[in-house]
């Protein structure tokens, strides 16, 4: 944390929780130490978004990032990894965008079984409670995502990377 410029000590990281709340829904919750408008800004501004959506630890890079963050706008993200020439594209549409409290988007890269993701930002005492819901069209769709190791285009890249590394390891 040597880049911390403020006078405060490095803050303890808030925990990220995940719960399967129903047969077809997963919910991720996280407190962010900042007001909702700033969290929203970091989410809805492509230049900022691409700096956190693909954490360095993943080894992935975001090759392109087109986001038209408004209701009925579209997005398209393309990822790459140094060990592969293949790129992976993730895309969909924003069904609803209400700054700075709510973004809803579709995940259309798979087939008809993609989840609809809703993220809400709820500010309290200068902090923001971030709640992200992945709602699958059916129990079968979520079970299938789990069985195949992918989830609405989020874990997929890491999964595929794992597979790739495993394949390289075993020389398959």
């Amino acid at each position: 944390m040597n880049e911390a410029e403020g006078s405060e000590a490095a803050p303890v990281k808030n925990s990220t929780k995940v719960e399967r709340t129903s047969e077809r829904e997963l919910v991720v919750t996280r407190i962010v130490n900042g007001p909702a408008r700033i969290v929203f800004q970091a989410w809805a501004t492509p230049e900022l978004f691409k700096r956190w959506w693909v954490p360095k630890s993943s080894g992935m890079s975001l090759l392109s990032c087109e986001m038209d963050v408004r209701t009925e706008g579209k997005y398209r993200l393309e990822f790459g990894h140094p060990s592969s020439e293949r790129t992976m594209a993730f895309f969909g549409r924003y069904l609803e965008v209400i700054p700075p409290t709510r973004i809803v988007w579709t995940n259309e890269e798979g087939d008809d079984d993609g989840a609809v993701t809703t993220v809400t930002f709820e500010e309290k005492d200068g902090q923001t409670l971030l709640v992200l819901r992945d709602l699958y069209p059916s129990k079968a769709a979520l079970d299938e995502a789990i069985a195949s190791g992918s989830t609405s285009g989020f874990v997929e890249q890491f999964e595929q990377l794992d597979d790739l590394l495993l394949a390289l390891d075993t020389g398959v």
Partner: protein
Amino acid sequence: MVQYIQPHLDASFAALSDPTRRGVLEQLGRADASITDLADRFHMTLTGMKKHVGVLEQAGFVITEKIGRVRTCKLGLRRLEEEAAWIERYRRVWEARFDALDEIVEELKSREKIDERSRG
């Protein structure tokens, strides 16, 4: 994870409270079987066996698969573990993202402070 596993535990205990269902699990531990096979073996009607299998399936102990006209049952014990492991991986992806998001948020906050000061 605790909130996630709890309802599964309740369902698990309920499923295992019945001797027929425990017998079915024991049987499936030896070999996969159709609902008809199981009904015969436990001297039950097809409907009765379907109900028991349904409870076991709901609790994740059994998975069933319909091939043609036959529904085959097999042990599904690994299912819960697989799902829990998958959810943990999913959680880690979000954790890594949100930890990175924190840095951007800190940066934007301090930028705002500087702007406020310069507007002073």
